[in-house]
């Protein structure tokens, strides 16, 4: 048994029983979709339409439909790519790192967070493909024998590292997520009434019965996956940062990028998790599972990572000055005071200043403020990538080639479109999959304020009753010690 | 590389061409105009295209065939010297009114695909201007006329010839043959044949970028300059590296003593010193060692001050301190380099040029850095004569007019008047290669072939001659103008033979003409002379009255200078050439269209910002062009490029920019390319495409 600190708020409030947990969470899957969900899906689908139109224009006429030019070869495309990948990281982080640290509170959010990871990575993966001049040849990036003879891929190129990193990251997150889902699918299967439901959830659950042997292997697997995903998630954003760090462009060629990008990723990721969780808990009435305590904890993480990012920003400037490299210094001065000063300013405000509000308890525990904060951070992190990519490129070595970037409608369309794609996927997930990991939540039901379980028996929820750390000597043979309430009833 | 040894071709060429046309009774239509317009159906089917290709190959390479070429299209028996995918080079010559270049035509499978400088040429020495580089595209210009026509109705050569002959015979009053400068002896002879046959025909040459002031000031000749021998160069607004008279030739001369090397410890590396007094920042000015920005109206005063400083004849007043200081400095250096210095002026004002000529005289540069005895021929236009023509045209004294590659309606300051008068003329013939602003107003269209389809010869400078030879058979049913003139003159001789005969005098009969001729055809250039300068009638302006004239040219108000762009030039055939439109201006880096360049102070004072469209007005006419803030532009002046604003040149060049020729002054003494203008903001904006 694990020691539980007496000051901790309950992880799951409302004195839920195992059965209540099953009820509450399966309810969303089994009940007819509610109107708020339909509305949300509608909006997402419209944005998805925008996405398809923009992609059609891009593919049919060419990248010229975007605002790029000879000097600025990447702008919104890669900005969005890095932004989405960054967001994705929080999911893995919550499910893997927090698992390793035995942070029990992760249980009620990790499922949704992992789903978010997967959908975010899908959105991210759109951009490296779409931004290609000839996406239909994207398979060239894989080391395949081809008609041109044995012309393989260039393993020196950070972009190729990306290919491997992103695909590994995506598939690993996927199996991690799915393995976690299997027991919950079994639960739904065993409750399912409809034929189709029975059939499909039976397929999904792969014949899971919850036998002790399976559980023990299951735990080993998730532990190892967690153990491996942790360095993986760090490596992914490190490699993404190397797209820039290994180049010669002043403002990109910066050794601090890997840690700085990872921190940024966690930062933006948690912001996105918060955004989603706050919506989900309202839409699906899961206030008891995603409590203020969760929100406060995530706020804290956001604040810490936000500060790390802030430090990184300042370090960059220091290094630029310290290096005494003309181009480097100009790149950073131009960032802050040049034609794109506004982007830099908004990045600074959103990412460094606003998160500091979390120091105030009131902010930390306020739903509304947290929601606004999380949105602001998401915006800020988008600007961070924009600043890094565009302001570095638009004025590099040769003044003769300096240029400005202005996005076209298609640029905006593709970006907004991926947001639509993301939410469509997320809403579908939330409707047909258990948004909260039932098995894990049940496992932590017992841990709460006063050290000791509060499980109140199967038939009646509520009320924290006398604790049972070990079975009491039997009052009457045959009557389970774990059910004093029933016992009393029987006496009536 | 191989140059062709093209002789055998020569005799059977015309007959061959005739048969060739016989073989394609209806000539290959090639798609022109936008997709979706009526003539879409006229797109050449692939096989016809191949036929044409095969044919052109045969024609162009016939040259080298010992065996007579059969009209079989596929290479059943391949002509020698022509291997598919191997390029041949043919020597030829590029000259369009402005710059002269001896070129090599890179011919691939029977079609010219590139022009390169001809290193054999003592004039351009392998150099090639941007305009000449791009000229190969003009050959395939879809806007070219495809056949002869009378009042828009397609006709055969013979029909038109007959009609024209009767027309000329029955013409009442003068018939003017208007052309730009012609430096081709044989062409002149062909025209002479025409004027000989019809006494009332008079040949009028005018230059869009006129140098008549310079010619007048030098006793009727255009001096040949040699910048390579000048240690000190003073240029009063002459953009001799970019557009003035013969830029390629001058550039090569100029750099010979700009190149430095320090490997020989004994001799110190030296360079020429280059002073530039100019209004707009020109290509030449940007290369100068000392550049002074002055108003066009000050040019005279500066020339005078320079003359006085050089001759020591009193000081002049009315110059800014800086300018005065620079002039003195320049004069000192000039004096230290007598006979090894050069003063040039871009002005078309005879008075100014007279002073400059006198200065060169005083410095003893005549015979060293500039030559009057072996003059240049690339400018022969006479503005006064042209002005007189316009007046006659208006008065109705002209009974007929023939335009030979001349487009005065567009590029003459009084184009409007010509446009109005032209329809009233009884007989109007255009030999222009397209239905341009002038040609479209004429009754008869006898389009000239492209120079890459024609035989011709040139003499840019006395003693230096070069040839042009066809690198491809005419793509359309056009005929080269010289041949047309001969037909009208009643001769049936082929122009090739006509030309070759003319060269007998040049090369001399002795030592076997044929061998010498073959060499010329191979090299493309030769020494010898055939052109004669027209005896000078006007009187040479003395320094005294030049001084007095200049004294009275003080001006107030904003002065505008009109200049040529290195790419578009005078807006002739270049105007429909996308390469040249997209070639960034060397200084402003602007492409696609002209603009009014203003100094920063003026822009700030007037609250103009880049791209604001201004209405520029002078002589009661006005154009609208966007503002470009140009460092180096003289205070109180603006500058606008000519050559834009074409309306009938083709889909590339039409309505790109505005026609600035209307702002030029057509004075009695000649066309002046600067004027007092008024500028007002229209409120519209038009972004300038700068790279």
């Amino acid at each position: 048994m694990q020691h539980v600190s007496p000051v901790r708020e309950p992880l799951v409030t409302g004195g839920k029983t195992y059965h209540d947990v099953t009820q509450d969470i399966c309810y969303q899957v089994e009940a007819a979709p509610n109107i708020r969900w339909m509305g949300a899906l509608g909006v997402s689908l419209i944005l998805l339409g925008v996405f398809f139109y923009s992609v059609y224009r891009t593919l049919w006429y060419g990248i010229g439909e975007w605002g790029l030019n000879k000097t600025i070869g990447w702008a919104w495309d890669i900005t969005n790519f890095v932004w989405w990948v960054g967001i994705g990281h929080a999911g893995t982080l919550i499910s893997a790192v927090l698992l390793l640290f035995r942070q029990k509170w992760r249980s009620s959010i990790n499922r949704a967070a992992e789903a978010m990871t997967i959908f975010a990575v899908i959105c991210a993966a759109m951009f490296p493909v779409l931004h290609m001049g000839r996406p239909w040849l994207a398979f060239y990036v894989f080391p395949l024998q081809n008609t041109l003879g044995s012309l393989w891929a260039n393993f020196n190129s950070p972009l190729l590292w990306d290919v491997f990193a992103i695909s590994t990251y995506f598939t690993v997150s996927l199996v991690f997520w799915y393995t976690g889902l299997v027991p919950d699918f079994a639960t739904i299967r065993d409750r399912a009434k409809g034929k189709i439901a029975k059939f499909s959830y039976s397929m999904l659950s792969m014949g899971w019965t919850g036998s002790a042997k399976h559980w023990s292997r299951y735990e080993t697997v998730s532990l190892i996956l967690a153990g491996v995903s942790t360095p993986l998630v760090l490596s992914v954003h490190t490699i993404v940062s190397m797209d820039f760090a290994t180049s010669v462009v002043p403002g990109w060629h910066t050794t601090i990028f890997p840690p700085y990008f990872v921190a940024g990723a966690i930062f933006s990721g948690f912001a996105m998790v918060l955004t989603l969780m706050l919506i989900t808990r309202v839409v699906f009435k899961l206030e008891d599972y995603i409590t203020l305590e969760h929100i406060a904890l995530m706020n804290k993480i956001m604040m810490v990572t936000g500060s790390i990012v802030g430090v990184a920003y300042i370090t960059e400037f220091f290094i630029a000055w310290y290096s005494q490299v003309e181009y480097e210094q100009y790149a950073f001065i131009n960032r802050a005071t040049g034609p794109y000063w506004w982007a830099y300013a908004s990045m600074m405000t959103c990412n460094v200043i606003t998160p500091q509000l979390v120091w105030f308890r009131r902010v930390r525990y306020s739903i509304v403020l947290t929601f606004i904060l999380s949105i602001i951070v998401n915006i800020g992190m988008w600007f961070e990538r924009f600043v890094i990519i565009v302001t570095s490129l638009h004025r590099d070595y040769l003044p003769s080639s300096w240029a400005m970037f202005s996005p076209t409608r298609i640029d905006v369309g593709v970006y907004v479109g991926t947001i639509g794609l993301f939410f469509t996927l997320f809403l579908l997930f939330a409707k047909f999959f258990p948004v909260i990991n039932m098995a894990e939540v049940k496992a932590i039901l017992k841990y709460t304020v006063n050290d000791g379980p509060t499980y109140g028996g199967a038939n009646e929820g509520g009320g924290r009753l006398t604790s049972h750390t070990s079975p009491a000597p039997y009052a009457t043979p045959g009557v389970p010690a774990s059910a004093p309430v029933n016992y009393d009833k029987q006496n009536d | 590389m191989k140059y062709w040894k093209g002789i055998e071709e020569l005799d059977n060429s015309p007959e061959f061409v005739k048969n060739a046309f016989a073989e394609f009774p209806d000539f290959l239509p090639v798609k022109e105009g936008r997709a979706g317009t009526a003539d879409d159906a006229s797109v050449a089917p692939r096989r016809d295209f191949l036929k044409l290709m095969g044919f052109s190959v045969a024609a162009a390479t016939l040259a080298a065939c010992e065996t007579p070429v059969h009209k079989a299209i596929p290479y059943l028996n391949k002509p020698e010297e022509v291997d598919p995918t191997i390029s041949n080079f043919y020597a030829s010559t590029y000259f369009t009114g402005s710059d002269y270049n001896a070129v090599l035509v890179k011919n691939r499978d029977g079609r010219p695909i590139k022009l390169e400088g001809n290193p054999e040429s003592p004039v351009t020495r392998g150099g090639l201007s941007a305009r000449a580089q791009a000229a190969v595209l003009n050959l395939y210009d879809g806007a070219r006329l495809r056949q002869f026509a009378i009042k828009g109705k397609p006709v055969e050569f013979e029909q038109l010839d007959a009609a024209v002959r009767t027309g000329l015979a029955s013409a009442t009053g003068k018939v003017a043959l208007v052309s730009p400068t012609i430096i081709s002896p044989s062409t002149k002879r062909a025209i002479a044949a025409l004027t000989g046959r019809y006494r009332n025909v008079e040949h009028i040459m005018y230059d869009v970028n006129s140098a008549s002031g310079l010619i007048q000031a030098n006793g009727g000749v255009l001096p040949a300059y040699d910048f390579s021998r000048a240690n000190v160069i003073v240029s009063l607004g002459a953009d001799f590296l970019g557009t003035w008279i013969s830029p390629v030739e001058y550039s090569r001369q100029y750099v010979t003593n700009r190149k430095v090397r320090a490997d020989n410890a004994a001799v110190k590396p030296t360079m020429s010193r280059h002073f530039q007094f100019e209004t707009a920042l020109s290509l030449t000015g940007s290369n100068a060692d000392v550049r002074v920005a002055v108003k066009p109206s000050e040019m005279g005063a500066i020339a005078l001050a320079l003359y006085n400083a050089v001759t020591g004849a009193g000081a002049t007043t009315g110059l800014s301190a800086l300018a005065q200081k620079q002039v003195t400095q320049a004069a000192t250096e000039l004096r230290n380099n007598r006979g090894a210095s050069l003063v040039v002026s871009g002005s078309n004002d005879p008075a100014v040029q007279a002073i400059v000529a006198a200065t060169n005289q005083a410095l003893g540069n005549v015979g060293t850095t500039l030559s009057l005895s072996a003059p240049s021929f690339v400018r022969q236009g006479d503005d006064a004569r042209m002005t007189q023509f316009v007046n006659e045209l208006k008065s109705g004294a002209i009974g007929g007019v023939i335009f030979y590659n001349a487009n005065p309606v567009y590029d003459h300051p009084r184009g409007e008047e010509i446009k109005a008068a032209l329809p009233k003329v009884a007989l109007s013939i255009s030999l222009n290669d397209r239905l341009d602003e002038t040609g479209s107003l004429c009754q008869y269209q006898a389009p000239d072939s492209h120079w890459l389809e024609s035989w011709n010869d040139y003499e840019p400078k006395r003693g230096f001659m070069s040839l042009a030879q066809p690198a491809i058979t005419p793509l359309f049913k056009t005929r080269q103008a010289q041949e047309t003139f001969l037909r009208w003159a009643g001769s049936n001789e082929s122009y090739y033979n006509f030309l070759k005969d003319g060269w007998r005098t040049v090369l001399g009969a002795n030592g076997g003409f044929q061998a010498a001729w073959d060499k010329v055809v191979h090299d493309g250039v030769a020494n010898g002379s055939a052109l004669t300068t027209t005896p000078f009638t006007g009187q040479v302006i003395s320094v005294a009255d030049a001084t007095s004239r200049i004294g009275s040219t003080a001006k107030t108000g904003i002065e505008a200078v009109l200049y040529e762009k290195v790419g578009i030039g005078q807006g002739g055939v270049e105007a429909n050439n996308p390469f040249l439109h997209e070639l960034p201006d060397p200084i402003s880096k602007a492409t696609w269209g002209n603009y009014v360049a203003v100094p920063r102070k003026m822009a700030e004072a007037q609250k103009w910002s880049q791209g604001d469209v201004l209405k520029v007005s002078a002589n009661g006419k006005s154009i609208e062009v966007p503002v470009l803030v140009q460092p180096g532009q003289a205070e109180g002046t603006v500058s606008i490029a000519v050559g834009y604003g074409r309306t009938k040149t083709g889909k590339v060049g039409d309505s790109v920019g505005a026609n600035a020729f209307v702002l030029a002054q057509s004075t009695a003494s000649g066309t002046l390319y600067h004027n007092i203008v008024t500028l007002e903001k229209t409120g519209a904006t038009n972004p300038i495409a700068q790279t």
Partner: protein
Amino acid sequence: MTSPAITATSVATPVATHSSTKRFALGVFEDEDVLLHAVDNVRAAGVKIYEVFSPYPIHGIDDALGIERSRLPIAAFFYGMCGLAFALWMQIYMLGFDWPMIIGGKPHIALPAFIPVSFELTVFFTCHGMVITFYTISKLYPRFKTPVLDVRSTDDKFIMAIELDENSSQMPKLTQLLRENGASEVNHKEMTKF
């Protein structure tokens, strides 16, 4: 208070050899701790526990049931090593031997540049190898219908299953034994093709 007779039969009698039908006594528990104790006692009573089903992993149940530690970690390590080896071979062969090209003047075999891909492939092989193994050895694969002894075991009940012989002779004794150990109910269940 267990009788050797029961153990004798339950342990000795080979069951379900000639028919695919199996019979089970299912002890239903409400709480994991009670179950844990029950497991100890039942095994102490010499009864062979067929399997335990629970809605979530119970810590310590492996020891109680005597399930030996899984060897998946070793497998995972092995897969990882394969991935690493493959990655290095691929990169060195492709850029170093199959078609060496000059890329930015770098050596053909630029090992530092190969690190990221090598790492990623190691992870890739580790995870997928291990997960595939997990599903295979646990016989987990998509099926149309999943036979479950007690559907509540995926909801809120902890089920202890004990296999019986053809005529379920040990049932009464087992019922008593389980009830004594805190089972809220004890059911008899037959399963074909289990």
